[in-house]
């Protein structure tokens, strides 16, 4: 077991393309860190550099006290689980799991004891003599994990290990991974493009975009205090709503109406007076105005025509459109919109599409006007040029 330190790591390809730019990240011994970002953001490349499968162009990588830049993968004492599992098809499950120990020249009885132990943890006891081709997707996934566990390595590296499973199994395996990591207490780096996985699994989450680390924090910190537009839009499902905003004295002008700024927000956003900004509002910061009660003066009420209403039982999702107002361009918003093809559809400021999460007791109806309320204390304000969150206070 060991800590892993990435110090100013850069990956540059011969054609000059930089997949990872000046990445610095410290993973403590026994910590579970998630690397998350849209496809092509460099998260897998970063992981492969830690594994030794990809040479490091610049910077220093330390596992434990040792600098491992020049070490072969076999000398780094890390185990990796691949997206497509990469089980050896010509070996039985037992041989797959024992392969690493066999290469290390371990004792035969030692190998089978450790394999049996790992198989027991992963509930693979009955499948040890079968070939990978005879197993289901979930079982193959567990064998891949077993192959990593058996070695008792300094760290586990997981490259989107659950993305090949169907939705139901993925949720099940997610808790399994979490439990396993807690039980073994081994340092783990886990790469995923799924923000839900990132939020539910890790001790800390590192969000990457275009090869650059955006923010490293606990899931709640990322959710509540995203450092920039990208992190704000990427983390959370349904995604944060963005709309143009201007600060005028004590008020913020939003397409849905003017909001009186709470004191601490005013303090932080004070210098942005008059400039066009981008406001970010989480779906749950909205509420049916009829249900707000005493909190009413913390925000502002407005009416909107509910275009689509999704009743999820425990909550309602109301979709409506605001007047477009002036368009605000931001490269980060564009990237979020492009990534939205992958599933999570963020609401871009341009189109004025807003999603609000309402209490199921709400009497709001699809196709009708409704009075909604937005909580001003939960507002995020972003500088559209730099993408920085003016309200995160860092």
């Amino acid at each position, binding site marked *: 077991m060991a800590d892993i330190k990435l110090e100013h790591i850069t990956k540059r390809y011969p054609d000059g393309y930089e997949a990872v730019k000046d990445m610095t990240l410290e993973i403590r011994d026994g910590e579970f860190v998630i690397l998350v970002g849209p496809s092509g953001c460099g998260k897998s490349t970063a992981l492969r550099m830690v594994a030794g499968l990809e040479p490091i162009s610049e910077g220093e990588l330390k596992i434990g006290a040792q600098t491992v830049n020049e070490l072969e*993968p*076999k000398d780094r004492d890390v*185990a*990796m689980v691949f997206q*497509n599992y*990469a089980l050896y*098809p010509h070996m039985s499950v037992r041989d797959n799991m024992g392969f690493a120990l066999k290469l290390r020249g371990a004792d035969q009885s030692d190998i089978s004891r450790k394999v049996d132990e790992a198989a027991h943890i992963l509930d693979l006891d009955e499948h040890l003599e079968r070939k990978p*081709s005879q197993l289901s997707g979930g079982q*193959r996934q567990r064998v891949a994990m077993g192959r990593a566990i058996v070695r008792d390595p300094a760290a586990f590296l997981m490259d989107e290990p659950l993305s090949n499973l169907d939705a139901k199994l993925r949720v099940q395996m997610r808790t399994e991974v979490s439990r396993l990591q807690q039980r073994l207490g081994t340092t783990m780096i886990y790469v995923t493009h799924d923000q839900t996985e990132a939020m539910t699994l890790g001790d800390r989450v590192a969000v990457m975009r275009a090869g650059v680390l955006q923010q490293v924090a606990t899931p709640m910190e990322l959710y509540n205090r995203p450092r920039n537009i990208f992190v704000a839009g990427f983390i959370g499902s349904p995604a944060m709503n963005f709309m143009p905003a201007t600060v005028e004295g004590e008020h913020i002008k939003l397409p849905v109406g003017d909001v009186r700024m709470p004191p601490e927000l005013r303090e932080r956003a004070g210098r942005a007076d008059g400039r066009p900004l981008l406001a970010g509002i989480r779906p749950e910061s909205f509420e049916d105005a009829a249900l707000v009660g005493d909190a009413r003066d913390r925000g502002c009420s407005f009416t909107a025509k509910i275009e689509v209403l999704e009743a999820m039982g425990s909550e309602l999702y109301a979709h409506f459109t605001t007047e477009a107002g002036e368009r605000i361009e931001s490269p980060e918003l564009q990237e979020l919109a492009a990534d939205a093809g992958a599933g999570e559809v963020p609401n871009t400021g341009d189109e004025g599409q807003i999603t609000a999460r309402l209490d199921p007791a709400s009497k709001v109806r699809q196709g009708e006007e409704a009075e909604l309320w937005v909580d001003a204390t939960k507002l995020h304000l972003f500088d559209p040029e730099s993408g920085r969150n003016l309200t995160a206070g860092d």
Partner: protein
Amino acid sequence: MGDRARGILMWLAVVGVVVFCLFPFYWLINTSLKTGSDLNSASLVPPNLSFDNYTSIFEDSNFTKALRNSIIVSAMTTVCALIVGSFAGYALARLRFRFKFLLLAIILSITTFPPIAIAAPLFKLWTDTGIYDTIVGLIPPFLAFTLPLTIYILASFFKEIPRELEEAALVDGATRFQAFRRVVVPLSGPGLVTAGLLSFIWAWNEFLLAITLTSSPNARPVPPALAFFTGSQKFEVPLGTITAATVVVTVPLVILVLVFQRRIVAGLTAGAVKG
């Protein structure tokens, strides 16, 4: 046309093709079982069934020596072709370097080369260096002609093996060579069998280089040896013994192909990755 008529027509066509292809082999076996004046008869079955030809060729030391030479030369050629070919094929499949396509094209173009083009220069070179008329002397030129196809077949098989399997082995603690030997090679079984079989058959059937580079029964493989066949008695027409010898050298090939047929077809990589 009804389905039935179409079926009959198809079977007639199949039978026609099979007879056309296999009749010469049948005639070969037929002839090998005849002796004496029967050899001149055109009967479809031997009038007096006899295995004399077979017993006489195995009593002939020239034939048994030729058989031994053929086995050694073909086996050595195959083993060398597979070892060199798998390294070269692996490099072509995995490494990125300039002019890779050009290199592969040049390697493959060697197979279109007529062996007669190098027969004479090789004869001169081999007599000068003293490996003329030796078994060892046959292997390098044979390799030159079997390697291109071996490399090509193995490279295409290696390319099909997911890179992650090797990477998994590397992270599991294998060196590059261990990953190659314990993961890539076992998974390329069908490719190795196909390539090996083709080299073996090529070497086994080779005539031109074999007759050019050998002069005595000590080094001469079967195909040229058949040309020097005289039969057991001096003035006998050696047709019976030649056909018997031909049957003897054909049968191992047929058996080899039949045995490995299933392995060539089998998809060994099933279950390697999600699919």
